[in-house]
């Protein structure tokens, strides 16, 4: 195995812009998806559940829920791009094989894909942000400071997803990752309710999961609350992004350069 540290070069933007070009062709359905989904979720769940729940953790549920969905949506979008789309380009479409006949190396491909996963995460959560403001669920303008964190959260989940793609023999193997890690994070890391309502012994496990740190940054910003331990949360997310990038490069090299 080639454990050399990856190099980050400008050529990663060539990979990013290839994906952007493909996305641009599908801009209408993507936009419908990005805005339509949160619209339905926020209205349906936020208003429907919100009228029973009223406030949660000192915030109206109609604000509490979207401030969690902002983080989980980056996670899901970046992860699915890193799993299905990356695998498709790596294995059935052989897109990377074509790229590896040009000056691009695996390092550039993985870096470009991670940037792209994060970009898609950013787009999906920005749409939720807009919808949240439109329906009055979000009101505090400090919410726009979430944007750079969306990108970081996207990078944090992109790396591990590409690691899974690089190991998977087929699409079906993604179920392990989705069912054993992604769905538990979505349900247990505080998107729908505060983590501290769970039994005490579970909390330490929840605290090592990256989505908890993502929510700890995004929720206060989006709901107009003070931020705590910013550096800690940013470091955890950055560590997942960095280690994920390194492992993804090593494993994609193993799969493609043999």
């Amino acid at each position, binding site marked *: 195995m*080639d454990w050399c540290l990856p190099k980050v070069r*400008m*050529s990663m933007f*060539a990979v990013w*812009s*290839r994906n952007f*070009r*493909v996305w641009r*062709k599908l801009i209408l359905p993507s936009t419908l998806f990005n805005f339509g989904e949160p619209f339905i979720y926020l209205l349906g769940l936020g208003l429907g559940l919100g009228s029973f729940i009223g406030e949660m953790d000192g915030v109206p549920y109609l604000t509490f829920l979207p401030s969690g969905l902002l983080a989980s949506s980056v996670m899901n979008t970046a992860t699915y791009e890193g799993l299905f789309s990356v695998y498709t380009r790596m294995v059935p*479409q*052989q*897109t990377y*094989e*074509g*790229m*590896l*006949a*040009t*000056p*691009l*190396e695996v390092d550039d491909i993985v870096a470009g894909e991670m940037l792209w996963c994060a970009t898609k995460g950013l787009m999906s959560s920005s749409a939720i942000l807009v919808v949240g403001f439109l329906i009055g669920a979000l009101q505090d303008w400090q919410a726009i400071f979430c944007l750079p964190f969306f990108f970081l959260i996207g990078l944090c989940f992109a790396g591990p997803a590409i690691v899974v793609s690089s190991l998977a023999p087929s699409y079906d193997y993604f179920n392990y990752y989705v069912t054993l890690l992604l769905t538990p994070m979505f349900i247990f890391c505080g998107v729908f309710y505060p983590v501290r309502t769970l039994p005490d012994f579970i909390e330490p496990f929840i605290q090592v999961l990256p989505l908890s740190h993502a929510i700890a940054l995004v929720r206060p910003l989006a709901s107009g609350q003070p931020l705590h331990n910013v550096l800690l949360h940013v470091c955890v997310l950055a560590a997942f992004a960095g280690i994920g990038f390194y492992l993804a490069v090593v494993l994609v090299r193993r799969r*493609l*350069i*043999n």
Partner: protein
Amino acid sequence: MNSSSVSDPPIVLAKNLSKRFGDFLAVDDINLSVPTGGCFGLLGPNGAGKTTTLRMFLGQSHQSSGSLHVLGQVMPEQTRSVRRKIGVVPQLDNLDVDFTVIENLKVYASFFALNFRDIESYIDELLVMVELEDKRNTRISELSGGMKRRLSIARALVNKPKLLVLDEPTTGLDPQVRHLIWSRLRELKNSGTTLLLTTHYMEEAERLCDDLVIMDKGKILKRGHPKQLISEYVESDVIEIHCSMEMANSLLKQVSDIRYELVDETVYCFTNEPLKIIKELETQAGLTWLHRPANLEDVFLSLTGRELHEAQ
């Protein structure tokens, strides 16, 4: 015309190059010097190690031992710089199915950090060259196999490579497309691009290659110009007779200077004096036979296809 001269350093230089996958030795200690200019062929049956060898030349596979220089640069360390000057036509088309014909060329050019506007007219020339100018805005899924291969060739030329590497360039294509591709490749060769191709079509190698090696089981068996190899390893003519070995023996017992090989139901007679044999055969009504000049396939089979041969 070909701008290279004898003094040019080799475009590829491999010394004691080996590639091992677990217990399997895919490339076994080969020494190879590919001259700059002209067309060089890597021939061999499937599994001979041709594709692995090519992948090492491109930095897509790293050698287990030995040294490799491509365009004077050390591989795999200088992969990026080498790939900048190489064009690759892969064995299986890996065109970007999310794009149209012209978009494929644009996006590929961007991987070389080439600005599309600077090369726009060159890309138009490439489309004309591969006869796809009417298909600019066609999606890849709507192209035929032959069109895809032609687009792959155009794509491999966007960076004006010094060396064009083609892995089985005409496998699976119909004769019209093969002839079109061969003629384009000859033009490229004449304009000074070095071609390096793998093939198991002997006809392709004979038509295109100035120099070639025959590989089998990871080793290089022979090297030479196709005509030289033919004259060196087989007689000038081959007569294929559909009969048993006993029958051929009794028919041709008066004729000397023949070498026989039996493959399935056919006796191959290798000879420098075909007329004598033909005279004998013409007396036999109902016998099916074929007279042809010896070709590279005969050399190839005699070198690599031993298990099928039952030479007398």
